[in-house]
Structures are given as structure tokens and as C-alpha cells.
């Protein structure tokens, strides 16, 4: 019983285990690392990536890919900045709406028009970048007049949790709830495991896929709003590397690339792991090039950690292991 549980859960133990290991090792080697202030720091630094990885997890659950999340977040932050002066804080809602629109575009292209996810999201990524440049005077960051107070507020903590991280935590709670308790969540897993079989039992896989992409777009838009709050400016050219990072975080968090398997909190730990490693390298002050090599090696190895956990902690060898 216990052996099979560990087998099934091994992929979801990678991220928490890795995070624990990182905090211990870095805490021992780097001064001042395992303190509350630093952990709060890591939390606020990871806020944007957490939202993006959450959306990415949903999309990967239905056998898809969304490389437009970074560009959509940047475009959304630009939209928020442009409308801040006239609309006040409801400009953040507009940012989320922009994300929703791009998510809808992706969803329709992929679910209903049968375009491959990578092509469709590549298209919307380029379109989002172009749109962001168009509305922002060819890529100039947009500075609203009274956003400075917003940015100062953003770095506060509430009940010990960084304020920037709160939207991500709320979203994760919601998604976790939907995946476990609602039929939609069950349908997402079914479509991810086998779309044809799901159709045969009456699940509209196209609609479910569309919903997954819509959610991913909403989270990307929300990430753009968080970016705007953090910086007080709209940044049309940001986020170029965020797409791959979010997929990496989701995969480290146990989401299967071929769909059908996902869990919310390990993805969060995956994001924290990546951020914790970067912060450790930054605080230590190693040469930036060596830091990059170290991060690359860790990501490289992260894929094999689930089988390492199996070997170390499982008392029987799983059947079929070669």
C-alpha cells in the first residue's frame, strides 16, 4: 500500500523535497538565508511565476502548451498602466480581461480550429508583443501619474505573507478546489488522459480545453496586474523568458507533459524551488555566468529526481523499472 502510494506520488514529492533540500543547504552555506525575511522575499519574488505556472499546469493537464503567457502578462501590465490614470484601480481588472481575451484566442485556435498548441500560442505570443508595442508608443514603458503609492504598498506583508503573493495563493486555492471537488476538474483530468475516451462518455473535450486556456489567460493577465503593482509601470517588452520558466516549474512540480497528471501545491513548490535557488545564488554573489551554469545543471537534473526519490524511499522496486 505504502509502496504504491510513494510510486504514484513520487513525481509530486520532487518539488517539496527539492525546496527543503535547497533551503537546508543554502541556509547552511549562505549567511542569513533561512530567515523569515528572506523566505518572505522569495515568496514575493515568486508571485508572478506562481500565477504563470498555475495556468501552465492547467493547460498541460489537457495535453497543451502555452508559450504566450509571458507576452500576455507584459501586454496586460501595459493595458493596466495606460488605463490607470483614467480608471484608477479598476485598470487591474482590465488587465485580467486582456489576459482572458488572449486565453480565449488560444482556446478557440487550439480546441475548435485544431491548430497545434505550440503554433497557436506562438502566434498569440507574437501578436501580444506586437499589440503591446502598438499601444505603448513602440515599446516604451508606460508610467501612470499616480502609481507610485501602489508600488510602495505592494512590498508590504499581510499576516506574514507578502502582499504580492496573495493573488497567487487565492488562485491556487480556487484551482485546487475545482480540481478536487468540481465536475469540471474531473473533466479536465479525463480530457488530459484520453480525449477520445472522454468524448465517448459525453464530455465536451473542446469546451473543457477552451476553459483551460481561458483560465491560463486569466492567470497571465493577473500576473500582468501583479507586475504592474510591483513596478508601478507598464512594461511591454518584459517576460521573454517567463514562458519556458513556467513550464519548467510546472514540470518540476510533477505535471506530466503528456497530460492527465497534475497537482496544484507541488507546482507552487516548484516555483519556490526555482526562485529559492536563484536567490541563493544571488545572495552568495557568485559570478553571474557560473550562476547560470549552476541553475541549468539543476534544472537538467530536476527531471530525474522523482526516480531518485523512488529509489531512496520506496521499500520495493516498482514493477517494470529497468
Amino acid at each position: 500500500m505504502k509502496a504504491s502510494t510513494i510510486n504514484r506520488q513520487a513525481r509530486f514529492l520532487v518539488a517539496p523535497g527539492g525546496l527543503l533540500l535547497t533551503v537546508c543547504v543554502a541556509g547552511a552555506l549562505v549567511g542569513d538565508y533561512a530567515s523569515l525575511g528572506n523566505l518572505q522575499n522569495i515568496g514575493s519574488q515568486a508571485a508572478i511565476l506562481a500565477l504563470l505556472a498555475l495556468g501552465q499546469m492547467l493547460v498541460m493537464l489537457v495535453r497543451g502548451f502555452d508559450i504566450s503567457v509571458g507576452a500576455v502578462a507584459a501586454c496586460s501590465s501595459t493595458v493596466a498602466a495606460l488605463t490607470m490614470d483614467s480608471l484608477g484601480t479598476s485598470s487591474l481588472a482590465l488587465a485580467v480581461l486582456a489576459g482572458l481575451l488572449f486565453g480565449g484566442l488560444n482556446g478557440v485556435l487550439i480546441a475548435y480550429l485544431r491548430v497545434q498548441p505550440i503554433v497557436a500560442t506562438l502566434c498569440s505570443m507574437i501578436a501580444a508583443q506586437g499589440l503591446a508595442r502598438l499601444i505603448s508608443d513602440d515599446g516604451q514603458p508606460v508610467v501612470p501619474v499616480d502609481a507610485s503609492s501602489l508600488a510602495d504598498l505592494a512590498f508590504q506583508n499581510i499576516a506574514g505573507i507578502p502582499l504580492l503573493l496573495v493573488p497567487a495563493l487565492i488562485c491556487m486555492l480556487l484551482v485546487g478546489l475545482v480540481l478536487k471537488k468540481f465536475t469540471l476538474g474531473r473533466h479536465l483530468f479525463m480530457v488530459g488522459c484520453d480525449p477520445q475516451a472522454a468524448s465517448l462518455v459525453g464530455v465536451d473535450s473542446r469546451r473543457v480545453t477552451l476553459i483551460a486556456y481561458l483560465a491560463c489567460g486569466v492567470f497571465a493577465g493577473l500576473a500582468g496586474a501583479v507586475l504592474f503593482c510591483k513596478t508601478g509601470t507598464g512594461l511591454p517588452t518584459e517576460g521573454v523568458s517567463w514562458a519556458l520558466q513556467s513550464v519548467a516549474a510546472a514540470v518540476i512540480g510533477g505535471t506530466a507533459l503528456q497530460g492527465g497528471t497534475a497537482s496544484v501545491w507541488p507546482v507552487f513548490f516548484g516555483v519556490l524551488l526555482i526562485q529559492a535557488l536563484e536567490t541563493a545564488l544571488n545572495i552568495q554573489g557568485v559570478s553571474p555566468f557560473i550562476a547560470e551554469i549552476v541553475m541549468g545543471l539543476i534544472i537538467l537534473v530536476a527531471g530525474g529526481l522523482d526516480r531518485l526519490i523512488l529509489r531512496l524511499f520506496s521499500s520495493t522496486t516498482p514493477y517494470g523499472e529497468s
Partner: protein
Amino acid sequence: MTTFIKQRSAIALGSRIGVIAIPLVVFIVCVLFVPRFLSVDNLQNVLRVGSILLIAACGQAAILIVGGIDFSMGSAVALLSVVTVILAPEHGVALAFACGMCVAVLAGLCNGLLIAYLKLPAFLVTLGMLMVLHGLASLLSGGMPLDAAPSPSFLWLGSGHVAGIPVPIVLAVLAVLSLHFLLRYTVAGRGWFLVGTNFNAAVNAGLPARRSVLLAYVVAGLFCALAGAILTSRVGSGQPNLYPDLAFATIAVCAIGGIPLNGGRGSAVQVVCGALIIAMLNNAVVLLNLTSAWQQLLMAAVIAAAVLLPQLHTVRRRYTHLFKGNAQ
């Protein structure tokens, strides 16, 4: 029954024509609307730039067919350029290029070993390699671009001619022919299709599936090395940020050509069509003198159109039965 077969062959013929038709359509549109597009010099430029992308995309196609993916091409090419430019002054141009190309092939070999034999996920492995190779290239070059002495022998690969045709184009043609040969006429190449469709089934059927995957990554490393050598020669410099978007560009080329990302299908013709479309598009947006915003919006629109047009007849077929009932 006969109508069914006729329908199937018509669709097959249609899709094959479809793949070649799109670059033709793009070409005609460019000739009509883009100033100065249809000149010998400009077309040579387009083909020369497109050749580099095409050769790299051949490598990516092999990997996609076998069911993997490679994000590290941009950094492999960068490391190749840095190694080549560092070695060229003391050891001669030919040896320097050979060493650089070996580095790129080694990178492909590493990817293949980690993915096929250690069974690490291709996504994470190549993403990690992207960062590792970029860091190595930065370390070796000190972060800054290095210049190669502009000797004719160094620049030959990028700017030279063979019987009046630019070298990159000749090499691209050879690369495409070898990919076609590999995919159609060798056991190893045809095995890639099987392994890409279903890895476990291939293993059970007795295919050397892991070796097949490793071979695909090594072959891709060879293509990537060739593309990188031509690029280094053309630019005359070794730098960590030589072509950071190369991996994405090759994936776009393959996807636009119609090669699915989950493996099992693909052909050299598709790669050529995709590369031509992207090369012509990149040329067109500069000749049209669009601002960067409109350049990107136009690219997105054309890519969407290029992918959707072949789908139109299947989409219409799929949805008419909703209205007409049981049409067959």
C-alpha cells in the same frame, strides 16, 4: 468503397499540394506588395539567411519526429562560435571550425544520452542545457562578442560561392537531401517515425528505441553544427548571444510546415516550406519598412493564416455534419 478511397487519396494529394502551396502564395503576395522584393540580390539574401534556419530546422525536425524537442540550439550555436573564434588565430581556420562543430555535436550527444538512456524529460534537459551552454559561452568569451580576423577563408562558409551559387544555399540543399534520404531510405530514419509514435510499443516490438532517440539527437547536433558554422562565418564573430531565438525559430518552422510536436510524422519538404515562409516573411517586414509593432502583428497574422488555410477544408467538413446530420 471506391469513393472512400478516392476521397482519401484526394485528401492526401490535397494536403501535399497544400504544404507547397502556402510558400507559393506567400511568394506571390510578396512579389505583388513588397517593394524591391523580386530582385536577384534580394532573393539571394533571402535564401542565404533562410539556409541557416533551414539546416537547423532539419535537425529539429529529426528530433520532433522521434518525439522529443530541443531548446538548446541557440546556445549550442553560440558556444560553437566562441570556441571557433578563440581557436582560429593560433590553430588555423579549418581546425577551429572543426573543433567548434565538435562542440555542437557533443552537446547533441549529451542531450541524447540524458534523454534516451537516463530517461530525463527532454523539455527539462534541453532547457537546462540552454542555460549551461550559454553560461559556458559567456565564461569563455568574457561576456563580450569576440571578433574573428576577416580572412577570406574564415568568411568562406558564410559569404563564399561555389560555381556561382552561395555556399550556404548549396549546403542547405545538401542538408535537406540528406534528411530526406535518412527519413525515407534508411532503417534508422524510418525507425524514428515508429519510436515517435509510441515509444513503449516500439520497445516491445523489439526496436532499439533508445539508440534511435540518441541517434536523432546526434544527427540534430550535426545539422546544428553546420548551421552554426555558416552563421559564425557569416557574422565573423563569436558571442554568447549569437542567435538566442534559434530554437524557437526552428520549432516555428517545423510547426508551420505541419510537423506535429508529439512526434511520429514529418518530412523534409515540410521543413523546406516552413523555412521559406519564415525567411520571406522576415525579409518582407523590413522591406515594407514597418514599425516593430506592425512587424510582429503581421508575422502573427501570416503564421496563423499559413496554419489555418490547410485546415479550412477539414474544419468545414467537421462542422457541416453538425448541420446536415449524418453526412458521410
